[in-house]
């Protein structure tokens, strides 16, 4: 569906603070379009952000917003949703925010199936603080704090969130903006349970520069070349899978969200 997403965007604040070529603008556009596609009312939306470049997304939104602390957006969002279940609560987190400093909140919210939508911009590093490594930085790559090559392995975030119990988990990349919109839209339509969209993004300013890919065009091209949809996985030799970015739905299950369960509990204990 063609949507502009304009009614959610604070146009007076534009242009974005993000560097030219940053993937965040693409995710932001897809998010606001998905909101419009589902006819969400501004007053029903709360966008909770953490701290990081992607955490600045709330500066451009005309919905209710909560700009909090680094790593804790999902915890704040949990409180908002449980205190007013009618709200549509989005947590917009970076990979540093969402799975590194705040990883514990992510897996527990997934396990509990807190009824929120989390959109993670995974650019493999801490953009905001100058490109240091995060929990998703690939083995051997260069960052501001791994000049000799990163010694650790990265999280496969979507698999982790799936195994934690989330009802809906999907991965996409900024090379395919339409798919981002589609997946967010689907998450909105699901209405309950924990819904997690991991968007593989780029940070040309730091991660790109450190790893000999300074142009956004080059990075996006690399992303699309390495992208494989789940559906096509059989066509790829197992030894070639290592370098690929798997996109698609990791999990799509009907689950009973926390809110619904807790409401049932309340009803069951009401004095008769």
């Amino acid at each position, binding site marked *: 569906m063609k949507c502009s997403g304009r009614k959610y965007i604070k146009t007076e604040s534009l242009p974005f603070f993000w560097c030219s070529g940053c993937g965040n603008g693409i995710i932001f556009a897809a998010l606001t379009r998905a909101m419009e596609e589902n006819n969400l009312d501004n007053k029903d939306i709360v966008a909770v952000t953490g701290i990081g470049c992607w955490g600045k997304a709330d500066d451009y939104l005309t919905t209710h917003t909560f*700009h909090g602390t680094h790593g804790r957006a999902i915890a*704040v969002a949990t409180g908002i949703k449980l*205190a007013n279940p009618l709200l549509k609560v989005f947590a917009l987190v970076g990979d540093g925010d969402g799975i590194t400093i705040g990883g514990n909140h992510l897996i527990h919210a997934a396990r509990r199936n807190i009824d929120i939508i989390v959109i993670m911009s995974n650019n493999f590093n801490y953009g905001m603080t100058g490109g240091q490594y995060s929990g998703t930085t690939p083995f051997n790559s260069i960052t501001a704090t791994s000049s000799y090559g990163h010694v650790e392995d990265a999280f496969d975030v979507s698999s982790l969130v799936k195994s934690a119990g989330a009802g809906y988990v999907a991965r996409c990349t900024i090379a395919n903006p339409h798919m981002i919109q589609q997946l967010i839209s689907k998450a909105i339509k699901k209405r309950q349970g924990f819904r997690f969209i991991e968007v593989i993004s780029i940070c040309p300013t730091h991660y790109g520069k450190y790893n000999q890919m300074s142009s956004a065009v080059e990075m996006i091209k690399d992303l699309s070349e390495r992208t494989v949809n789940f559906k096509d996985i059989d066509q790829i030799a197992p030894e070639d899978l290592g370098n690929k970015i798997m996109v698609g739905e990791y999990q799509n299950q009907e689950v009973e969200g926390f809110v619904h369960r807790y409401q049932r509990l309340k009803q069951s204990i009401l004095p008769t």
Partner: protein
Amino acid sequence: MICPKEGRYFLQGNIAVGEAAIRSGAMFFAGYPITPSSEIAEHASIHLPIAGGTFIQMEDEISSLAAVIGASMTGVKAYTATSGPGMSLMSEHIGLACMVEAPCVIINVQRAGPSTGLATKPAQGDFFQFRYGTHGDHMIIALSPASVQECFDLTIQAFNFAERFRCPVFLALDGIIGKMYETVNIPKRNEIKVVNRKKAIASKVDYQPYQPDEHLVPPFVPFGSPLITRANGSGHGIDGYPCDDAKNHEQLVRRLINKIDRYKKEISLFKEYYTHDAEVLIVSYGCSTRPAIAAMKEARKRGIKVGILQLQTLWPFPEELIASITSKAKLILVPELSLGQLKSEIIKYCHQKPVIGINKLGGVSIQPEDILTVLFREIEK
């Protein structure tokens, strides 16, 4: 509720806090179990859902306070309870609550630190942590009960202050007061004064989330309202959008402090025992008040004019009260289950009068004899 009606009940301090929270209209609790505070979480888990509210046990104290703040911004009264180690984990979000101006009540049933310390034993070592427990200039309110009745009364007061000033309010219990059982008088519901935060009345064009009223507090708009609101823990203008202008930051932080500081006198709650003719003044709070009362009675029997100032409000610190009440005293005694935190604050305002601490660690309570021994020694000098 454990006490469905008004009347006299035999309750634990922690439970009295929970009963009062529900009567204050609290509808949300998020917390992480820790001795000696866990009864407050357990009570909330049983009684909040019946009252129509929500209880959640989070994965840690960082997320507990985060969830409380989030819930508060939907217009719901929210609280959490913890002890030293959890208080330390909450540090960053104490500042967040100050900055986004989220009314909330944080109960710390103090235990012996530092670190895990003596996990089940009481202490009063977090006196300064209440005040300075987060980075940056800021102001909070901290109240401290010395009996189970005060646990009830001051919990109501804590929610009222949180609502009125849109700030975090601490309840400083300690392992003795929290775990102790006493008779409590619970008033009729309609006799309990409950304050609710002031709501903003504005048009969509005029509304600014951080536009303060004449008391320096911005009227509140909950998430979900047709007036769109923004909570922002970063430096922000009155519109809630980020602003790193130097003058704006200065104004913002000064306002966050002044909105409380300006009403310090009203916030300052205390009790006096025989202070009118006291030559020796004991200044106490929380559990150390109880041996102080016993010691005072014994000393008075022996003709020594002892009086007590019991602070119920610890922060903002009642400087003027201390200055005026100590002006007549010849000697000031400060019993504390710490190495003298309250004492160091009193020294600043008591006209260089001698201030002697009666300090104990180890998680055992101060005895009346501990106070009397020091008293007799000092007056013989």
